[in-house]
């Protein structure tokens, strides 16, 4: 039986998340103390060498990102935790924060030391108001204990906008504006929140920091896939028997995720497709199930690791209908700032509805492919660039399903 490997969920079920003493007794805040006895560059080198890459979906080397901000000379810098998880089928950040809020605070404080920032923000999605209270409680207790030193953390609540998971849109929202993405460059490590150097990292990324500092980069680098080491928290939804969350090494295959951890297909149906990485991820067929989940292997297979959502469909599912629903999602969540996304997501939804209702033609499918290419290249942010992925991957991998609905 395949086994889980817990780094970010190390304290789950072992500590009371509302009690800082539990976290400290489990070895918490020792890594922060250790990091503070190291120079900024030593901390950044350690994170860089560990090979840790962002767990929010972009997969950028975390230490390298920190280095960009550390190099900037500025009176003020910021550390921002992206807790705006909004990918449909994803709830991993909620599980991490509900069970171990201090691991996030500790990771953020280590980042603050490494880049020279005195202030952090946790941008928590509006759908999780009770979680914001858990985080605020943790911050209050950490301040009382004095473990954070002079590093200050504030929790801000989002208000329901998928696009705010994009880091520059998140920054706009923190500033009190509409959450529309910015033009880049400059990137946030150079000019972010209030135009100051800013590190935006995902919840899961921050939860990995303390263990890396404590146990060393060599330890972390030896776990999972060489190019994307460590673990990934995945959330299993759809037609799997065991709808659950798991934390597994990154060299675990998609097949093991579904058939071992997920205990196979529900109702003993046959497997048809899996969409990994959230609603912007690609759908892959059975022939690609032996792909390891790490970022690079998934990309090579034409898929995505993304947020780690695993949405499984069985043989009875109407994949064109599912993708039509997804197309509506993107039309709803497009912020409207750039035309390729605003118009493109609307046109995609209309064409998908046409095909889904049996009124589409081969030309419509060709149009979707062309529109997808334009959007992938011309949209301002990841939302619009990735929106065609579920459409294009299902046309490529499940073309029969489209053909069956064409006139």
């Amino acid at each position, binding site marked *: 039986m395949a086994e889980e490997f817990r780094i970010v969920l190390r304290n789950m079920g072992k500590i009371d998340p509302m009690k800082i003493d539990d976290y400290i007794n489990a070895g918490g805040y020792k890594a922060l103390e250790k990091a503070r006895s190291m120079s900024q560059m030593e901390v950044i080198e350690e994170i860089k060498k560990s090979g840790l890459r962002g767990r929010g979906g972009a997969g950028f080397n975390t230490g390298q990102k920190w280095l960009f901000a550390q190099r900037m000379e500025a009176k003020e810098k910021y550390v921002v935790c992206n807790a705006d*998880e*909004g*990918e*449909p*089928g*994803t*709830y991993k950040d*909620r599980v991490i924060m509900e069970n171990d809020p201090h691991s996030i605070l500790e990771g953020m404080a280590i980042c603050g030391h490494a880049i020279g920032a005195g202030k952090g923000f946790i941008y928590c*999605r*509006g*759908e*999780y*108001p*009770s979680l914001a209270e858990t985080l605020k409680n943790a911050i209050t207790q950490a301040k009382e204990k004095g473990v954070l030193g002079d590093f200050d953390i*504030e929790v*801000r*609540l*989002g*208000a*329901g*906008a*998928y696009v705010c998971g994009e880091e520059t849109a998140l920054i706009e*929202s*923190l*500033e*009190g*504006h*509409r*959450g529309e993405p910015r033009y880049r460059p400059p990137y946030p490590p150079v000019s972010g929140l*209030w135009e100051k150097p800013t590190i935006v990292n995902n919840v899961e990324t921050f939860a990995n920091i303390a263990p890396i500092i404590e146990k060393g980069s060599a330890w972390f680098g030896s776990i999972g896939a060489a190019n994307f080491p460590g673990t990934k928290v995945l*959330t299993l*939804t*759809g*037609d799997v028997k065991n*709808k*659950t*969350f798991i934390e597994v090494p990154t060299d675990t295959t998609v097949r093991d995720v579904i058939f071992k951890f997920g205990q196979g297909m529900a109702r003993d149906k046959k497997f048809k497709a899996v*969409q990994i990485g959230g*609603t912007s991820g690609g759908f892959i067929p059975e022939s690609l199930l032996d792909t390891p989940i790490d970022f690079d292997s998934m990309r090579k297979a034409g898929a995505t690791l993304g947020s780690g*959502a695993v*949405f499984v*469909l069985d043989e009875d*599912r109407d994949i064109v209908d*599912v993708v039509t*629903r*997804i197309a509506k*999602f993107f039309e*709803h*969540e497009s*912020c409207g700032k750039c035309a390729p996304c605003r118009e493109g997501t609307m046109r995609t939804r209309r064409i998908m509805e046409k095909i889904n209702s049996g009124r589409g033609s081969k030309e419509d499918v060709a149009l979707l492919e062309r529109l997808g290419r334009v959007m992938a290249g011309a949209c301002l942010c990841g939302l619009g660039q990735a929106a065609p992925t579920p459409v294009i991957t299902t046309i490529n991998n499940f073309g029969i399903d489209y053909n069956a609905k064409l006139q």
Partner: protein
Amino acid sequence: MINYKEIMGKYVSLEGGIIEAFHAIQKEMNYLPEEAIIAAAEVFNIPVKEAYGVATFYSYFSIKPRGKYVIRICESAPCHITGADDVIKALENELGIKMGETTPDGKFTLELTECVGQCQETPVITINCEPYVGVTPEKIPQILAKYE
């Protein structure tokens, strides 16, 4: 009469605090009245159009009056394939209103939403942010009874 400026005053010292201030207003009113948006513009010293722009960008803010309890039904893919449409119909039947409407007694409002991050059991609805997972049409009366 609610003193909007007093409620929002607490957030003036927070940079970018208008979103927190709007949350505070909605806690009292369940929506953002026009006067509250105008007051926000004054409190945060920004043009009214900007305050309005923020109020209308985020799906959790409403500029239309809503019921005491806002019921949101997730229609994202994992909920979609497990019967979100049936739950929508059942809620509409039970309350006698359509999506986006409020019951005449001002108690319930029905809204569609995208993923609320409770996908361990689908479909999911939330009532004033309280999640209910694995909802079926049969469970609806029982869930709503808690809010009578």
